[in-house]
């Protein structure tokens, strides 16, 4: 059962990813990413990370993707030409990506870390639930937590600065 779920989700995630890369129209890419994100959330659930999965769906697939859709709609999602202006890019890019994957896989598969070959230790039901995560966020990771909030604030300012109508221009 778990295997089936994994493969289904994995194929969804990978297919979504490939869709993102392959779709001519940015709008379809966004849709592919949403597929990808949902599949990923399923994988998180398989890994006993309920809170992360939930956040993934709510924050990402919900909020961020909506933003994307709006922007794509605003600027218009014309497709891009197939012409490649950078010599060698078309050949090197896949080659490097494959090399990257191979290297990472070698690193993972040849690692002496025994736990990699297991499904992970038995964990209690509380593992990965909002309470546990919240506790960690407020105890050990208080600073990153606070910093993230500042980061969001800064991003908001940034969005205004970059995309907002300028006072000078309106005045």
């Amino acid at each position: 059962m778990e295997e089936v779920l994994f493969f289904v989700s994995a194929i969804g995630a990978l297919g979504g990813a490939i869709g993102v890369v392959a779709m001519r129209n940015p709008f379809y890419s966004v849709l592919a990413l949403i597929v990808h994100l949902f599949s990923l959330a399923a994988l998180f659930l398989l890994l006993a990370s309920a809170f992360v999965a939930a956040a993934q769906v709510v924050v990402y697939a919900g909020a961020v993707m909506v933003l994307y859709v709006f922007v794509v709609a605003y600027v218009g999602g014309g497709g891009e030409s197939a012409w490649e202006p950078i010599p060698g890019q078309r050949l090197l890019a896949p080659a490097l990506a494959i090399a990257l994957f191979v290297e990472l896989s070698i690193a993972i598969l040849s690692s002496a870390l025994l736990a990699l070959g297991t499904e992970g230790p038995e964990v209690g039901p509380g593992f990965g639930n909002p309470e546990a995560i919240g506790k960690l966020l407020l105890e050990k990771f208080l600073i990153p937590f606070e910093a993230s909030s500042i980061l969001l604030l800064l991003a908001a300012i940034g969005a205004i600065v970059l995309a907002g109508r300028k006072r000078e221009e309106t005045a």
Partner: protein
Amino acid sequence: MTATSWAWLVLLFPLLGSIVIGLGFKVLPAKVAGAIGTLSIGLAFACGIGALLCLLGEDPEARHHASSLWDYASVAGLDIKLGVYVDPLSVFMVLVVTGVSTLIHLYSYGYMQSDKGYHRFFSYLNFFVFSMLLLVLAGNFVLLIVGWAFVGFASYALISFWYRRETATRAGMKAFVINVVGDVGLTLAAFLIFRELGTFDYGPAFEKAPEVFTTNEWTITAICLLLLVGAFAKSAQLPFHTWLPDAMEGPTPVSSLIHAATMVTAGVYLIARTHVFFELAPTAADISAFVGLATLLIAGTIALVMTDLKRAIAYSTMSQIGYMIMGVSIGAYSAGLFHLMTHAFFKALLFMAAGSIIAGMANNQNIDKMSGFGKAMRFTSIAFLCGALALAAFPGTSGFFSKDEILAYAEARGGMYVIFTVLGYVGALITAVYTFRLVFRVLPGVPCKEAQELIDSGHVAHEEPRNPATGELEDTDVGFPGATHHVAEGSWPMKAAMGVLSVLALIGGLIQIPGVDDVLSKWLDPVFENSPLAAIHPSLSTDWIGLGIGGALSILGIWLAHFLYVQQPTTPAYLIEKLRPLYTLFVNKWYFDELIDLLIVRPALAIGRFANRVFERVVVDGLVTGTEGTVRSAGGVVRAVQNGFVRSYALLLVAGFAGLALYFLISSS
């Protein structure tokens, strides 16, 4: 006053004279400057006499003294003091130098009167005398080199005295450079002496030498050969002689003083001074003797065909110095030095007279154009004749005694050395011929244009002065040869100098008549007391037989000259036609200049050109431009990679990452 104090005074006066005249060139009236110059040398001569008397008052064995003023450069085991060495040899040299110099100064006083560089001339001349005295009085090899080089410099300055004449400056340069080659030889010799003997001082060096060296050991031979380089360069021996004829570009008193009487004899002095070394290195001594012999013959042959009056006398000088070098090299020290002295008298005289005539010829030195000066300049021609007789070794004159003494010694030394006697006599014959060739071409006959003018009006009306060598107009800014220059026999100082020298040339030999007085060899005996070679004396009979042969050859030579140039004036042309190759060889001075040009000057210039055009551009700059080019092209690559495409940047980032990961993966296994 000790002998050394006199010696210091001898050095002091000319130096002072030079400085005073030099500094006062704007203040001092010309006559005063000339007087100061002449007087200071005269005083030096007087001091030389003082030293002579001092030494005479001493035991012959004790007649050598060293004295030093201050440490010149004495550290690290090199003990170089500012010191003099006084012994009969140096006193003899001092007297010859100052004596002849005084007269030549006197001559110059008149001769240079109309020259705009009068002060400069006397300053140089005094400096030259100072240098020459330093050379002969120096107490160690370093100071010897200093004097040696000073002489060379003074010679340079005086040769290129008329410095707007390109021929003169070039001749000066040539003389200087060749002299420097000589200095280099001497310096290397000094190094080798120091290495083997640990000292530069004469006294200790000569004392130690016989203990340290075995006869003909390579070191001592090398030392002697290096000394010979110095000696040959200065004394214009083969193959370093080419500067001397060119040096005739200088004013005539200069030729008279430097290039006849004093400087060129320095080599003779040097060999005599270091005879200890040469006796330890007989091979080197023999080489030296042969070079002397070769020089005397070759120079004699060239003198036979020279048409330039001064250059002919210059070649004669070379030839005569060949005798001296030969003499001192085979061991005839006092004979060689005796010839040095007599030669100084008659050759200085010949030059003075020649100078007088040339002045009368409006600076034309070509004997083909001269004739009849016997009438036009009676006093001068008598002086010229006296000098010529002495040079030709006419019986009874000074040259007669001194030359034969050398040849007699060689005969007495026996063995191989007889060659020197035989060929020496051949040289003597040639000498007589070329000497009287000059006499017969210049003095008798129908007066030429200039001579006639002299007879008529008492002086020569000059045209625009031209360089006798190239014929180009002179730049008269510098003075002589200026338009107002007509000094032929013009003043009493010239006459006085020539007069005294004429007398000396005629009777100077009397102080050393074999078996009669031997003043000179007795005086010099202490210097050579330990020398086995000096102990050889030709027997009285050998001496007189030699004198007889010499006298006969001299008269034969004069007759031959008379026959060729007076009785049968067409013969020379006939001979030239018959012996064309030989004549060409002689006229071209045996092609020595060309040889040196080919072997040294051209290669040096070629190397210089190569260095300048090829090496500097290609290698040295190439080093720079090559490196710079590499760096710049690397920069080009970096900037080409920076193509502005953000995806390209990402690609490189990923590639870098892949590479780094690969490295780590490899290093993990």
